[in-house]
């Protein structure tokens, strides 16, 4: 298994955000982590990336605990603009190239060229949506084993959504898995192999998307709405 999550719990103060999460995710799949805002999606993702400390349980990525080895093979897109805006695109590409052995600079330049972004442009001169695209292009330019994309479609217009979905589909490393969180299910459900439903810190479903559709005759979006009555 590529990603194993065993009995993971996380509290903020007294508030339990994650309650005994167990998951085993395979390689080579696009997996949707679906939940409403505040369901624990981002917390789980941050734990996998080592941005939060674990209260209880264990997380293994390709057999390794969260650390240098796991960070080498995970390419992570946070839910916020996180790059230093004072840097130019070239600076950031050099930065990625210096630290990630699996970063493909040529690919990054090509993807950014398609966006009509010049390498000298500073991030501070770009709109929020454009920054999101740059960040996605960088993340997808790594030959990773696991891509973790937190709300990649958050707050962008429909045309941008198409661009983002295309970029993800066309660029992820063969044999790798993608774990993608979202609360906008109808936009991405057709690309998902498997779906995880998370609600109130618990996993309520983990199944193949087409199997759920076949058994119910409904879309994942409908099933989700029925499960959680939103």
């Amino acid at each position, binding site marked *: 298994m590529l990603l194993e999550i065993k009995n993971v719990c996380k509290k*903020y*103060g007294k508030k339990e955000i994650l309650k005994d999460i167990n998951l085993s995710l395979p390689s080579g799949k696009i997996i949707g982590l679906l939940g409403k805002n505040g369901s624990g999606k981002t917390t789980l993702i*941050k734990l996998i*990336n*080592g*941005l*939060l*400390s674990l209260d209880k349980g264990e997380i293994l990525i390709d057999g390794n605990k969260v*650390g*240098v*080895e796991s*960070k*080498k093979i*995970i390419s*992570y897109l*946070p839910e*916020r*603009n*996180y*790059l*230093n805006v*004072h840097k130019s695109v070239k600076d950031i590409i050099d*930065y990625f190239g*210096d*630290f*990630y052995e699996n970063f493909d600079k040529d690919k990054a330049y090509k993807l950014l060229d398609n966006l009509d972004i010049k390498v000298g442009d500073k991030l501070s001169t770009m709109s929020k949506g454009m920054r999101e695209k740059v960040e996605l292009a960088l993340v997808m330019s790594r030959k990773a084993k696991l891509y973790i994309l937190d709300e990649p479609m958050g707050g962008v217009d429909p045309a941008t959504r198409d661009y983002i979905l295309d970029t993800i589909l066309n660029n992820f490393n063969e044999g790798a898995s993608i774990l993608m969180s979202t609360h906008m299910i109808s936009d991405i459900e057709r690309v998902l192999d498997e779906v995880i439903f998370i609600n109130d810190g618990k996993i309520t479903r983990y199944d193949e998307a087409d199997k759920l559709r076949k058994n119910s005759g409904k879309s994942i979006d409908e099933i989700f709405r029925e499960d959680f009555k939103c």
Partner: protein
Amino acid sequence: MLGKVLKYDLKALCRYLVPLYAVIFGLGIMTKLLSFFEKVSIINIILGLMIVALIFAVTFSFVLTGIFNIKHYLDNLFKDEGYLTHTLPVKRGTLLLSKVLASFITIVITFLVVIISLLIAFYQKGLFSDIIDLFNLDLGGLEFYKFMIYMMVYGLIGYLTTVLMVYASIAIGYSKNSNKLVSSVVWALIFYFGIEFLYLGVLGIVMFINPSFIASLEAESFLMIDLLNFFTIFMIFTCLLGLIFYYISYRFMDKKLNLE
């Protein structure tokens, strides 16, 4: 990896330090240029202001260097940028060590910039031979330059420990779920007063072990070397505190990281 991390830490610090150094050099050069026309009364007044500004800039440059390093530490490791920094395939210890080395390197550069700027501003014929004479001056049985070197090392250790104290306060404060900045400040105050208290304790212990010490400082036979020995106790103690703060920063960053 340390080299790469350090390279980018220094690059980021350049953004703040280059303007500071430009101001210090600028003031130094202006002072020198204006001093050629000091007979003109109006220029003499400007020269006076320029010198005041230069002294002001020089004095604050060390504090500013510290503040820039702390700001970079906070932004790079505990704010949004931390999402990138902490997902690099680099050990947490390396990230922290790089920040400490960057503080060390930048304060040394600031020191050199200040010296060079002052030399530019106030250079006169014979200055260097005067300085050499001063350095060789006997100071209670110790050459002045040895004393200077000693004080510089002590100053550097004190500076680094202070920076590490703030690093540790931030590491603790930002592991909390709310009021991160406030708890960082509170922890910095706790550490600060704790240290003052400990210094008093160390002083007490020294007095207890060697009650005649203070008296000997006032005696006719006062030797500088005795005073330095006295300082050395504090220097070692400060070093130890620095190491403790380093460890605290590391532990909290490694085990209690809480980015949100």
